[in-house]
């Protein structure tokens, strides 16, 4: 089922085995990796990449401890991780802009942060959520004290809003598209519309500092392969979606297709090349966290990411 590593051309060196750990169950954020593997872009770079589903373990610790070579992570995660001394480095932004936002069924009529007043937000109880809500509502001159925050734990969006919850934080590319498929109208309040500082990179490809130090060649090879994979996904969203579905047949086909369509133009978006990251973005988010007293230490933005492995 497409999992077989591609044999390199005869005469060449044998492929180097590396692994990449996903951040969640496979979804369209990961399409580029599956394409690069299936289409042999990794093999061209001399790599045999194993894509590992993370389960409960999560990617970050595995990558940081070099049990896995690469991983899919987020800017928020890496920022907090680095403050705690976890040596993660972001290699490429998978999606150029933050596509997450606060979603609510259209019937609730929540179109701006001002409408959050008097409504119930369902989250997972992190202080970051409250800070984000606060930032957004401040822009709209709304009072966060009028919003009730309820911890919904692992409950998914659709279930939450059936019950006591009015709005929740989602990725449009997946949950939002699912809503479209179901014919449920959603109102979205995107973070990027209200705060530039909250336009962070989510998700990103990451590795550990040690890996970069020890084996920059492999890092480069991996990033190049991935880049080519995402490039393909941008140009041929349908084919790319098929590759993902073939690799992970238990995913819902329609959802993958439609999500891929929605996401394809968002991978690179306004950047001059796929994966490009700006220092400003990393600094912005860290300073936003600092302002909200969410950062428990000093964060050096320059060390948190690098652009030097993505192809020109």
């Amino acid at each position, binding site marked *: 089922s497409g999992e077989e590593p591609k044999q390199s051309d005869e005469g060449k060196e044998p492929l180097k085995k590396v692994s990449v750990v996903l951040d969640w169950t496979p979804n369209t954020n990961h399409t580029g990796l599956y394409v690069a593997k299936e289409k042999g872009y990794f093999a061209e770079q001399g790599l045999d990449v194993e894509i590992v589903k993370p*389960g409960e373990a999560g990617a970050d610790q*595995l990558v940081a401890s070099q049990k896995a070579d690469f991983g899919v992570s987020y800017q928020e995660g890496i920022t907090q991780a680095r403050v705690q001394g976890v040596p993660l480095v972001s290699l490429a932004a998978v999606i150029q802009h933050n596509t997450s936002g606060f979603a609510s069924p259209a019937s609730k009529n929540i179109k701006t942060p001002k409408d959050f007043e008097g409504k119930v937000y369902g989250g997972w109880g992190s202080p970051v959520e409250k800070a984000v809500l606060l930032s957004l509502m401040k822009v709209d001159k709304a009072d966060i004290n009028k919003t009730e925050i309820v911890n919904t734990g692992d409950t998914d969006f659709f279930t939450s809003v059936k019950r006591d919850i009015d709005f929740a934080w989602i990725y449009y590319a997946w949950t939002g598209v699912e809503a479209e498929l179901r014919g449920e109208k959603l109102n979205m309040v995107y973070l990027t519309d209200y705060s530039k500082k909250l336009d962070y990179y989510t998700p990103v490809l990451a590795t550990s500092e040690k890996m970069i130090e020890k084996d920059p060649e492999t890092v480069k090879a991996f990033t190049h392969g991935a880049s080519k994979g995402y490039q393909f996904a941008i140009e041929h969203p349908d084919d790319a979606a098929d590759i993902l579905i073939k690799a992970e047949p238990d995913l819902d086909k329609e959802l993958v297709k439609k999500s891929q369509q929605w996401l394809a133009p968002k991978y690179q978006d306004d950047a001059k090349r796929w994966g490009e990251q700006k220092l400003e973005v990393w600094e912005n988010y860290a300073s936003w966290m600092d302002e909200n007293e969410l950062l428990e230490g000093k964060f050096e933005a320059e060390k948190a990411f690098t652009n030097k492995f993505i192809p020109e």
Partner: protein
Amino acid sequence: MKFRVIWKKAGAVFLLFGILVIWELAVNWTDTPAWLLPAPSDIFSEAQASYPDFFGHVLSTIYLTLLGFLIGSSVGFLLAVILHILPKIRDTFYPILILSQNVPIIVLAPLLIIWLGFGILPKIIVIGLVCFFPVAIAALDGLKNTSSELKHYLNMMGATKYQLFWKLELPHALPSLFSGLKISATYSVMGAVISEWLGAKTGVGVYMTLASSSFRTDRVFVAIFTIMLLSLLFFFVIVIVERIFTKWHTKGVDKSESKH
């Protein structure tokens, strides 16, 4: 009387069937959306549709379950025996047994993977951790509570610790041990599914997470039904083995049973 016998044997099946029918009707009447709670009929048709693909997952989970259960309950039993034979270390180790049940998997998982990789070993450890405990506790209690009259006889006759164990304590602890094995067997399938969340390529757990994250509630329920079926099956295998091993228990003892 014929009907009674059939009812006794198949009562559970009828009951389950009844629950399914009520469920089907309830879903239809209340117009519950399929993504929240699919009707049994939807679940079965999905099960049929995805059968060829799903079957591999099931096999892999069964394999994990059996291996984990066997290893876990053997370890549990051996531990009980060791703690029983060496009562001096029992009090020392007992708390460790309890602590072992309170390491949350989400914490253990990264450590296990970092130490042992993505192979089968960390998964077996997780299932084993789930399965060994009920067996160990039940076996310990069973071994401890032997009839003192019989124990005295064997001691007077000079039975060694080894003989005392094989001839008296073990047979006496069998019902207790099976009690523990039944609990373990029930947990083992869920244990395997959870262990698959440590990162596996195939398995019912993998299937379920994928289904759940792509909002395919019908498939999630296919997975659940499979898990349930497997653990029922497994449980009854233990019950049958128990009947074989404790035959004496039902023989001749219950003069009065007919009156109940």
